[in-house]
């Protein structure tokens, strides 16, 4: 009898240990997602197709980005429109500081002016150039702004519920995380108890990094936005001269 108890206890311990290996805690899973290796400086070409009522508008943008909040750095991005023709040449520079404040400049070649923009928390919930993404969706969320709970783990896929500790534009998010690459492949955004938007992500491995290849955001209102990434240049030494008004205007 004692031997049976001992065997059962051993089996239970082994199962727990196995579970600990294959199913991490929610915070550990999100640590891996948020702290996944990132390119030091990245240049990419982005095509955005917004489809509503069966009709589409396309925007092409080249992005230069550097900096990482997780390393205490200012995150800087320069985006220049390359198409369509009526917005070609315009662009913006954003500098997200670690304290969450953002400095933004907009270049309007038709006016020959660089305009400073007033940034506020409400900007984060604005649509990103009329798409189904908000600026917050594009910029990404802060790990510490949510509490996490694992809903399921099956076939290497974690399902993690993220509940905001402060206003985040959504009631909750549900991440689907591929544990083989520690990237989310789907996010469901909830409002009023329902899925308001669903984002699906595909990646390609470039050097040491899994970089987004295609992201689709589908809204419950039947509109959708597709982002396609190409021409990646990773680990670029993007010097201080890149994130300037001068480069923005060139």
């Amino acid at each position, binding site marked *: 009898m004692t031997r049976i108890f001992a065997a059962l206890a051993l089996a239970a311990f082994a199962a727990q240990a196995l579970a600990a290996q294959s199913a991490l805690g929610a915070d550990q899973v999100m640590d891996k997602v948020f702290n996944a290796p990132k390119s030091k400086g990245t240049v990419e070409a982005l095509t955005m197709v917004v489809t509503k009522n069966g009709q589409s508008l396309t925007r092409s943008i080249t992005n230069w980005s550097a900096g990482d909040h997780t390393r205490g750095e200012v995150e800087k991005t320069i985006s220049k429109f390359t198409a369509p023709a009526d917005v070609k040449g315009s662009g913006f520079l954003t500098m997200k500081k670690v304290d969450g404040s953002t400095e933004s400049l907009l270049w309007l070649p038709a006016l020959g002016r660089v305009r400073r923009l*007033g940034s*506020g928390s409400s900007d984060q919930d604005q649509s990103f150039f009329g*798409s189904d993404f908000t600026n917050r969706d594009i910029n990404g969320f802060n790990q510490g702004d949510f509490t996490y709970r694992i809903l399921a783990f099956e076939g290497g896929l974690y399902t993690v519920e993220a509940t905001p500790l402060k206003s985040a534009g959504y009631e909750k998010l549900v991440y689907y995380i591929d544990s083989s690459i520690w990237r989310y492949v789907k996010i469901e955004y909830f409002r009023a108890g329902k899925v308001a938007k669903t984002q699906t992500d595909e990646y390609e491995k470039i050097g040491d990094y899994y970089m987004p290849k295609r992201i689709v955001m589908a809204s419950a209102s039947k509109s959708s936005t597709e982002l396609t990434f190409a021409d990646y240049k990773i680990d670029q030494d993007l010097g201080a001269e890149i994130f300037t008004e001068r480069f923005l205007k060139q």
Partner: protein
Amino acid sequence: MKRAAIAAALAAFLCAALGAADFGGYVETRAGWYWGSSELVSPMYQLLEGGVSGKVGDAEAPRAQYLAKVDLEYDPTAGDSTTAATLRLGEAWIKIFEGPLDLSFGNQIVAWSISDGYWPSDVVNPWDYSLPMDPQRIPVPLGRVVLNGANYSIDLVAQPFWTESILPNPRWMPPSESALAALPHDTSLDAKPDFSWDSVGYGGHLKASFELLQGLDLGATYYRGKSSAPTGPGFTYSGMYPSGYYYLFDRSTLVGADLTLSPGGGILLKSEWGYTTLGDTDLLAPEDGKASAQGVSGFEYTIGTAQLEGEYVLDWTKGATEAFAHEAIGILTWSIDDRTEAKLAADYEFSGKGGFMLSPQGSYTIADGLKAGVEAYFFFGDKATIFGSYSGNDLATLSLKYSF
């Protein structure tokens, strides 16, 4: 016409010689009517703007950049076939990047002003005031050097040829001027600009940025040149020159300062001031009528997809009967969705019993590069005010623009 054609040919040659270049432009058709009148605001004109632009060297760190634009305007309602089509040279410049310097030459636009409804510091380019409530900058030949520092820039310009602004047509002139304004006056934009040391303009703008709150920019402007707008009332003349109506264009000196602050919370604060003296009057103790100051202070507030902008404008002229004039400008812009934008602009003039302008505007993107627009302007108020005097000029325009 001839100069524009030569410039276009030179630009084409330059681009061919430099290799990679982008070709782009737009075709726009616009029609406008005065409210309750058969008179057209702008003829049913078609405008074709074509241009080439490109970079020399590495696209991300070019050694030089160039742009050349030519406008072809066609007015099918013009009775005279020789005046139905007009070819104009637009912006056409080359910019060389040499260390921290940007050196540019050619037909350029210099925009130093930071505000949206009133531009005290934008004195380098003449303006097209055909529709005075929507003036457009006219590109002119300039030499320009910009020194780019880490958090500052110094922008210096030299303007060898003086070019007159395009004045409003008689319908938009004050009653005292409108009958005479149609008469020929001393210069015109089509005349070849003559070089004269008295007409050379020069000046600069210093801008410094600071990491205060969400960004602070401070600017200072100095410019001396011949004013592109009349600096005094016109007069009739008959003598050795052809008889006609003549305007005066004095030398002018502008000293200005500007400030932009982003404190956060979706708010942007702006203030810009300019002090102008005419002729050789003393800068600090000017003669009456020879000094003026213009200032604009305002805010922008962004919430969601809407932006509200408010500006207060002060205009002072030394020794004038009414030395101070005040205006308040409000602009509400709403991006309804990815295709539709609506805008409501209002401008209130505090003179006399007050006058104001109201302008609803809208645009709709039909497809990539294809946009339709509608604009209307309504004027109200005391006839002694500018807007009140425009009260018979309510108008609406429709436009369709295809960019390629």
